[in-house]
């Protein structure tokens, strides 16, 4: 299995070299363009959970390796791939599935419904075969299709009749649209009656893929910092020769290697929610720590986008906020660790 993952990682690295690395600043600052979307689709990265023959896969192994490797070069592209695959894993409409997996159309999922109960100003009312209202915190809000929940609890697929609302400040993943949406739609499908449970199931399913992105970001940031510290000098020595920087970086790389190994072990078996939460929590923490240290090693240059390190500082925080409710995750993990409900007064 590890050999298979190695091949996949190598293929994805080639993809990064060909489509991402020479355009990374453009990808950061502009929308991910149609050519890159097509390339992602052609490479099969939008068919990790759904095959054109209609079959769906629950194997997160290959999927996680792809996301990890994409995130090394572009966390935003990895997140776009994650959102697309999550959409494909939930939706059943074959025509839409084929359009999205082929890259001709786009789809997203409002995980904010799980993370922040949709936001305090969200209100989507379904009555008389129409959905009206507003939904906050939609990442990928310029998509053609959106999977979201309505106030009465159903999980729905919005096919038309919505538009982007207020644009949010964008800490991370700047090439993905992030706004509220305003909805007045009669063109939708009800996917499930118990929408939050269905969405939470998908939220749990992406725990390992999100961890994989976090590990990939750590790898990307550390690679840059290690390379930089071998060529940059201060006080007549290479940065790599100074203990505070190298000991800290080496310690983080050790954590990264352990987490990567744990991820491979987890995806090679049948991961349960406990393993997934361990991995997700620790990987998200590592991504933030690694980005901070890697930026520090770059000094003032790390603060400039040209060096490709500041995006990891922004994106690592964005990943942990947009795809994780740490408090909820910790409560669930505590209950699993203590064997009974724990972390509640």
């Amino acid at each position: 299995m590890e050999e298979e993952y190695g091949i996949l990682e190598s293929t994805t690295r080639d993809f990064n070299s060909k489509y991402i690395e020479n355009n990374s600043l453009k990808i950061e600052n502009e929308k991910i363009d149609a050519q890159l979307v097509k390339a992602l689709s052609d490479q099969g990265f939008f068919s990790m959970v759904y095959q054109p023959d209609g079959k769906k896969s629950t194997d997160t192994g290959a999927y996680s390796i792809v996301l990890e490797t994409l995130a090394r070069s572009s966390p935003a592209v990895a997140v776009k791939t994650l959102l697309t695959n999550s959409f494909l894993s939930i939706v059943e409409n074959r025509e839409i599935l084929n359009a999205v997996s082929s890259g001709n159309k786009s789809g997203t999922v409002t995980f904010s419904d799980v993370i922040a109960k949709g936001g305090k100003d969200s209100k989507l009312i379904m009555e008389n075969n129409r959905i009206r209202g507003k939904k906050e915190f939609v990442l990928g809000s310029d998509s053609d299709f959106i999977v979201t929940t309505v106030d009465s609890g159903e999980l729905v697929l919005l096919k038309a009749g919505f538009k982007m609302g207020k644009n949010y400040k964008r800490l991370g993943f700047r090439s993905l649209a992030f706004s509220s949406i305003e909805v007045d739609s009669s063109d939708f499908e009800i996917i499930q009656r118990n929408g939050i449970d269905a969405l939470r199931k998908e939220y749990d399913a992406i725990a390992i893929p999100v961890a994989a992105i976090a590990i990939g970001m750590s790898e990307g940031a550390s690679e840059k910092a290690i390379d930089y510290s071998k060529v940059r000098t201060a006080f007549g020595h290479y940065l790599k020769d100074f203990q505070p920087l190298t000991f800290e970086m080496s310690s983080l790389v050790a954590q990264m290697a352990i987490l990567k190994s744990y991820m491979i072990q987890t995806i090679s078996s049948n991961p349960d929610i406990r393993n997934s939460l361990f991995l997700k929590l620790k990987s998200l923490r590592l991504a933030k720590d690694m980005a901070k240290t890697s930026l520090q090693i770059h000094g003032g240059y790390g603060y400039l986008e040209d060096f490709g390190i500041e995006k990891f500082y922004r994106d690592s925080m964005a990943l942990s906020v947009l795809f994780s409710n740490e408090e909820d995750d910790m409560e669930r993990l505590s209950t699993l660790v203590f064997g009974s409900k724990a972390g509640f007064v």
Partner: protein
Amino acid sequence: MEFELDDDAKQAIIRAREFVDRYFTEELAEQADAKEEFPSEMVRISKQEKIIDFSNPWKVLVTIEELCRKDPGLGISATISAFGAEIFMLFGNDFQKEKYMNPVMNGKATMGLGVTEAGGGSDVANIKTEAKRDGDNYVLNGGKMFISNGQIADYFLVLARTSPPPSPEKKHRGLSVFVVESKSAGFGINKLHGKLGVRATNTAELIFDNVKVPKENLVGEEGKGFYYIMTFFNISRIYVAAQGLGISQGALDRLIKYSKEMGKVNVDGELVEELQTAIAEMATRIEAARNLTYKAASFLFKFNPNPVITSMAKYYAAETAVYATQKAMELTSLAGITSDLERFYRDAKILEIWEGSSEIEKLIITRMMLKDQRGN
């Protein structure tokens, strides 16, 4: 030992709060951040209203703190128009004070300090910019990097090498400070774009291509520039620590507001322990950083600077700013990421880098302490 600010400083805090309420609008902060645009009009008003009152350094310190608490980018923009002026105050002659320092102090001019170079960073003594004597002038060649006010300053204090170091170990010798006017022939500026944070501030690369500087613009004595700059850093680091206090306090303000309005509560209706603990930890760190900063300031403002305490204050306040913004972002989740808090998070990181990285501050602390222990 006195832990109370005097009435003047308290009054300065009130004035600063009134100023930010009027002029630090979210619209301005967002625009300056999004477009990397220096808030010229707000800064003009801040000078006109003398928001920074140089007659009392405590007032300067608490004003920086309050302004950064509302918005770091705008706060720093409004408080660094006279960046480096203390060098004139301490080492400049009457002519230089009259011509260059006073207009800055009166809000009629803007200045900057050119020390850091592309290949240098923390290694100040290793700068490559040269100043060669040519009759009644010095001729400067080289460049400076990451210079605040780079594009908007009327003049800069520039550190340059005027003679070769006597030995590789004594590179700090042979450096001198000059006033360089930005309208000088051969003086070039490249604005730096794409900063992670403090995007309202103006940052540029300076280029000196045979820039002629009259010999009257040599500040202090030739060859003592490194000492002047290090003396200045002992001052400026305290003000950077004040920026850190402001950013940290701003993050805590926002976390408390979030907790009151949206924080999760337990069955007894109290804020969950996770939030309570985080607020307590953050507030404690900020108070510790504030006490260190004020202690360093009290030494400095009595003309008895203590570099160990200064470096401790700068390093700890910067670290606290990064810690507080990160923690507040994590706890406020989607509400935080879509609010001005995300700007605080981006802005805070620079404090661990500029005016001496945290690593350099730690080395200063230890080396000075070891020196003291040896009885030197």
